[in-house]
């Protein structure tokens, strides 16, 4: 026969498990957002070791999943932040190339580095080839299109 204290402990544990499940749901949503944001470059992993199931998990097992997801979300944010900084730097470089092409001779910035789709590459090239090189006529050209698939 359960006494009042036992009933209270059971109810408290159930409430704690509910709380953990809602935290898991929120973290899973954040991790999914990160995976989608990272597409198509990837680099964000969403695998979290699971205790095996399907079954009702204990408080400790739910905590471990919650912590595993939190780690994954933190890692994903780190990857996305780093990628964002690199893209920002590439955008600044492209702006400088467009403003002063003569100071960035033959510098290349790929669309992928800018976080843009496609295989285009921005490059500072001399206008009219050798003549442009000798005369200092520089321009930014966007090479477009992806290489044909084999």
């Amino acid at each position, binding site marked *: 026969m359960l006494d009042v204290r036992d009933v209270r402990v059971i109810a408290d544990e159930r409430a704690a498990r509910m709380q953990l499940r809602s935290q898991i749901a929120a973290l899973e949503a954040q991790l999914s957002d990160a*995976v989608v944001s990272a597409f198509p470059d990837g680099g964000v992993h969403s695998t979290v070791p699971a205790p095996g199931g399907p079954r009702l998990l204990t408080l400790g097992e739910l905590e471990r999943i919650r912590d595993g997801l939190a780690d994954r979300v933190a890692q994903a944010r780190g990857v996305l932040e780093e990628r964002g900084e690199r893209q920002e730097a590439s955008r600044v470089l492209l702006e400088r190339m467009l403003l002063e092409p003569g100071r960035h001779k033959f510098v290349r910035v790929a669309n992928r580095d800018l976080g843009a789709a496609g295989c285009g590459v921005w490059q500072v090239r001399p206008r009219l080839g050798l003549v442009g090189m000798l005369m200092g006529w520089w321009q930014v050209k966007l090479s477009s299109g992806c290489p044909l698939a084999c």
Partner: protein
Amino acid sequence: MSAADPALEEGWIDRELALEFPELRIVSVSAPAPGRRTPRVLREHLALLADRFHGARAVTLRREPVPAAYRVFFRQVGLDPDVQRTPVEAAALDRLVQGGFVSRGPLEDALLVAVVETGVPVWALDDARLDGPLGLRGARPGERMGEGQYAADLAPGRVLVADAGGPVAVLFGDVAPGRRPDRHSTRLRLFTVAVPGVPALHVEEALLGCAEALSDAAAGQ
């Protein structure tokens, strides 16, 4: 749901499971067993779905409400959805690997259309081999799935789909061999497990759509 639609039957949920997951449901519907050949309409439907389903969608699928609900539930019951894929993600992955939704027979095709269109997985059982309504419960100590020397041991507490006669299937897993539909089946019992966050409308659409496709297939359309 129209008056002509077959009636959906709400299954039972074990008390412990219901307390932990108040929104968890198991719903089923009866449908005729289809013939052996997939009707042209169903094959065309599969091809149309394959055309609309691309790589980017397979990635963004996890952010859609219904697939996301299944991913979350998988985590909450101890499954890693990146190891054991949720049914809709498994279908999406197959689509990418095989370059299309491959027709495998009228029943498999109808189940595939249901999960791809709604995100809600549907399973089929031989109605004649069921004993009472379906429900969800944990496996009891010493319980096995199937009969004879090939029966599989079930870990106590493993969540099962069961009827009065015993385990019918592991949740999101294999159906017991003796309960699967075969070529002698005349009526099927289609069931789905609606996890928290899945709207009732999607559940109805998955089951009734699948039942309708099977009725058409049985009628030879």
